[in-house]
């Protein structure tokens, strides 16, 4: 990680740029950060700023994953409750339990997870429409891995 010296310096152009974005987007606050630096601009009578800690000396790996793209963080994500192998069909030649676009009801089997030679049905906990299926048939899944999204 290339790192500049410790002398505090403010990049005014960056502040101006964010201020303009604020104008253009009609937002009241923009907070922007990387591992190295952090910038927040706000406008109007906002709640007091809460400033989250800077990533810090971050270990060998990237500390922050792109939050918006992580399906595990999606409010409609159905996460695997166990490590195992996911199946989206009851039998190799059967039709899948669900397909994208299906309306699903509470209690309906969405996926099977095979663990220790036992097939565990993963049931729907909240009715909605399947918008994404994130696992392939027969794919290994970790604990907490998103299987599909129901919205």
């Amino acid at each position, binding site marked *: 990680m290339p790192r500049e010296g410790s002398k505090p310096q403010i990049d005014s152009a960056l502040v101006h740029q964010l201020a303009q974005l604020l104008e253009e987007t009609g937002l009241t606050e923009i907070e922007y950060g990387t591992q190295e630096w952090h910038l927040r601009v706000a406008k109007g009578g906002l709640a007091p700023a809460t400033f989250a800690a800077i990533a*810090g*000396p*971050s*270990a*060998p*790996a990237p*500390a922050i994953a792109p939050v918006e793209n992580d399906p595990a963080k999606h409010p409609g994500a159905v996460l695997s409750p*166990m*490590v*195992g*192998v996911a199946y989206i069909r009851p039998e190799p030649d059967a039709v899948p339990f669900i397909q994208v676009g299906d309306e699903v009801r509470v209690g309906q089997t969405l996926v099977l997870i095979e*663990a*220790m030679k036992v097939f565990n049905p993963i049931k729907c906990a909240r009715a909605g429409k399947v918008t994404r299926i994130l696992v392939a048939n027969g794919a*290994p899944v*970790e*604990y*907490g*891995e998103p299987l599909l999204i129901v919205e």
Partner: protein
Amino acid sequence: MFEKILIANRGEIALRIHRACREMGIRTVAIHSTADADAMHVRLADEAICIGPPSPAKSYLNAHAILSAATISNAEAIHPGYGFLSENADFAQMVEEHGFVFIGPSPDHIRLMGDKIVARTTAKEAGLPVVPGSPGAVESLAEAGTIAADIGYPVLIKASAGGGGRGMRVADTAADLQSAFEQARKEAENSFGNPEVYIEKYLRTPRHIEVQILADAHGNVVHLGERDCSLQRRHQKFLEEAPSPALNEAERTKIGRIAADAARKIGYRNLGTMEFLYENGEFYFIEMNTRLQVEHPVTEMISGLDLVREMIRVAAGAPLGFAQEDIRFSGHAIECRINAENPVTFMPCPGRVGDYHAPGGLGVRVDSALYAGYTVPPYYDSMIAKLIVYGTNRNECLMRLRRALEEFVIDGLETTIPLHQRLVTEPDFINGEYDNRWLERFVGGQ
């Protein structure tokens, strides 16, 4: 040899096992809870699989999840490390039943040594000296009184299913027996769901000395000398050294031979440790640990062997590459366990590590999964690093330990480093004159 090993543990020991695998050209699979996604062993392993939430019961103690992880990653063998499922005979058996190799002893041997009363009987039959005591479980206070009178006070009442110092009470005289007996049973019931207790002679100033055993699947057994682990607080080892400053060469050779013979007699396989109390030149078997020990590095330093590599080789069916007479001990090694704890109150102190700088140079080894910016999770053991120092003799080792402790920087957490620093300047410790109760007195009986 195995192509891929799953490491069913976390922290420094997962990293230790990973390193041995890498050095043997074996691919590694790390398992981890959600709390350990950023852990060092996870970062370094070839593959990492999240197996559950932070709670150990749902992750590192979850045999089903671990076996599923082994299945989906096509691992051939599982190394259990220490703690967690390492001495769980049912787990070892499940591992074998699912067609994986368990890197450790057979489930039968784990089971045998897991029950402390059976272990004691087995040890006695195999020729190990044991502490005089009840032949088996003691059911009533009356029976306890008879046995105690016979072996002589003070006596120790211990839970059959016990460990970690729970379910243990001392009776100094016959007058203390009733309350000690009842309290031990109650604590045993609460801690292990089993009130069964037995009685042993209580030694006033024993040392904890343990002998490292290594056996292959072809009947070859060697001992790798002893470790002195007398410096304990609340039955938790704090600092270990090898060789023991209390033993002479004849005692060392004798107890080593006795331990190896016993392991041979019971048909033991892989790595194991026989723990003894030592007082007035006599050894008394207390238990056998059927796994890798936290303090194994001190044995590695003085024997020149890599014990994790040996465990893997033996588990793969390879014969030992040396006989007892090929093993040479040289120099002296000390291990300091560094815990994320207040060094006075011993309150655990999980949290975010600020600066981290391990000591280096000649004769200094650090086994730790810490790094700057890492957050020590509150769910697991507080041991965060082991500092292992080698010297050509004990004095050199102590001097080197002192300078290494001066160099160790772990910011952001309270650690036991200051206590180790105090310890290494204590005359009793410098002279090797300490027993199992010395450290408790030193830290103010806390």
